């Protein structure tokens, strides 16, 4: 039974992260996702310290705001202080992550629920320990699953209703501004969603590997998609396939589940890349031969 819940929960993590990752990737902001996923750490620790509960609403809100703060700092450093983009990302997230680390080592010493291990790698194998049970015996599944479902509803609705805006912003931000659209609002809406995703996913897959879910499936999908909707759909498919096959690989080899999922995701990426290259070069060969025959016929 726990197999089922682990796969289901991880699949929703993959969908949430993948959908937003598509927009990050198209905006050339993949590393901002990385930064946010690390920068939420102090937010998580502070909120946990005050609420004493790993899944409280306060924790989610506080940590999400820290992610948005990171996005704001990156923006400020690169635009106002004229620090180069990748440097401002590096400065911001290592600083915030270090603050979080210090908080954990001083406040949380000996705490069983939150430690660096959990922060970095997540606890997917044990999510069923924190479960929701009604009427003392009706098991409804792990709490993490419901947190992910709520996040999915928020992300899904935002992307559905804001599809045109997010798409326009990703393709041509200057043009969006020329239409008088407040691109700052859209930018921070996306950053808030990314932040929320990494916060709810951190407990399941950890701060490091959530980036794999955020970037690898969208990058794979972009190789095979000609439309944005297609890319979102393929992202979900690649993400879920990686989750399922990664899980069984991990069980079979008795290794880290999350690590195995992200590794499979990376393998799928390279497989698609190679397949794409071979297909394109053979297509070019065919087109070239066709052109040659046409040319020959024309000259006869």
């Amino acid at each position, binding site marked *: 039974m726990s197999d089922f819940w682990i796969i289901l929960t991880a699949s929703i993590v993959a969908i949430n992260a993948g959908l937003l990752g598509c927009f990050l990737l198209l905006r050339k902001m993949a590393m901002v996702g990385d930064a946010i996923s690390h920068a939420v750490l102090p937010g998580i620790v502070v909120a946990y310290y005050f609420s004493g509960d790993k899944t409280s609403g306060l924790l989610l809100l506080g940590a999400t705001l820290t992610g948005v703060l990171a996005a704001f700092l990156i923006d400020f450093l690169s635009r106002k202080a*004229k620090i180069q983009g990748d440097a401002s990302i590096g400065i911001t997230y290592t600083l915030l992550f270090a603050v979080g680390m210090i908080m954990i080592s001083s406040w949380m010493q000996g705490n069983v629920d939150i430690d660096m291990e959990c922060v970095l790698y997540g606890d997917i194998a044990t999510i069923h320990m924190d479960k929701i049970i009604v009427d003392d015996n009706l098991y409804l599944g792990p709490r993490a699953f419901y947190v992910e479902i709520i996040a999915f509803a928020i992300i899904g609705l935002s992307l559905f*209703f804001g599809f045109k805006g997010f798409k326009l912003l990703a393709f041509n931000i200057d043009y969006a501004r020329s239409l008088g659209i407040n691109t700052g609002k859209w930018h921070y809406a996306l950053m808030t969603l990314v932040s929320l995703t990494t916060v709810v996913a951190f407990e399941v897959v950890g701060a490091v590997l959530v980036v794999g879910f955020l970037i690898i499936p969208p990058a794979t999908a972009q190789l095979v*998609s000609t439309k944005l909707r297609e890319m979102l759909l393929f992202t979900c498919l690649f993400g879920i396939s990686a989750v399922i096959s990664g899980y069984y690989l991990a069980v079979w080899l008795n290794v880290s589940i999350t690590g195995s999922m992200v590794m499979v995701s990376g393998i799928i990426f390279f497989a698609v890349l190679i397949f794409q290259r071979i297909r394109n070069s053979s297509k070019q060969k065919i087109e070239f031969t066709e052109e040659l025959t046409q040319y020959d016929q024309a000259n006869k």
Partner: protein
Amino acid sequence: MNENCAIEVHNLTTTYGGAPVLWDVDFDLPAGKIIGVIGPNGSGKTTLLKTIMGLLEPSSGYVKIFNQDLSKMREKIAYVPQRESVDWDFPASVFDVVMMGRYRKGNLFKRTNNTDIEIVEECIEKVGLTEFRNRQIAQLSGGQQQRVFIARALAQKADIYLMDEPFVGVDAATENSILSLLEEMRNTGKTVLIIHHDLQTVSDYFDYLVLLNTRLIAKGTPQDVLTEENLSNAYGGQLTLLAKVANLIKENQFPIREKDVDL
């Protein structure tokens, strides 16, 4: 104030990182004309366009569109950025990109309606891309991509069109068809402002010229602007070299433009 003034630029100064890119530029542009903005590289042509569009904040001075603030006139003015400014590997079709011309501040959360679709189809046809409407934009030639951008601007149904180098990387046939499209637009009373770099074609293409090199060097009809004095003020020593190269190309009939084949 002139009734017939489409764009008024008043004592405009725009700086980038402390250094002025535009310095005290001041002019009125007539409506219903094809207007060229020329000047050497780094003379602030793109900055001028971006400042008019409100993408850059001027350090001093202001811009008025038909005597109104830009914020009230957004829907009357369409912007065609440089083709290189976007990633053409974006997963979108020709139709998708031209549809963005129908996006408005007020309709982002609404679904597109039939009128929008009709307008988009019509604009795609105007630029001659109907057979490519479902093709992914990555699989278009440079000239076709440029035409996608122009179709998107047409779909905005604006009165003023600001275009940043629409003829770069475009073959001669496409350049001619774009030009006749622009003339058609002018004849229906639209104003078109174009950044252009090819001095040889300037007097054939434009009714009115703005010659820029950080400061405004000259403005007016091509005959008034294209004097040796104005050009050497704007281009300095570069011009003699440019002219020599241009003559050489003309004499030897070298192709000047990037080769562009309809796929």
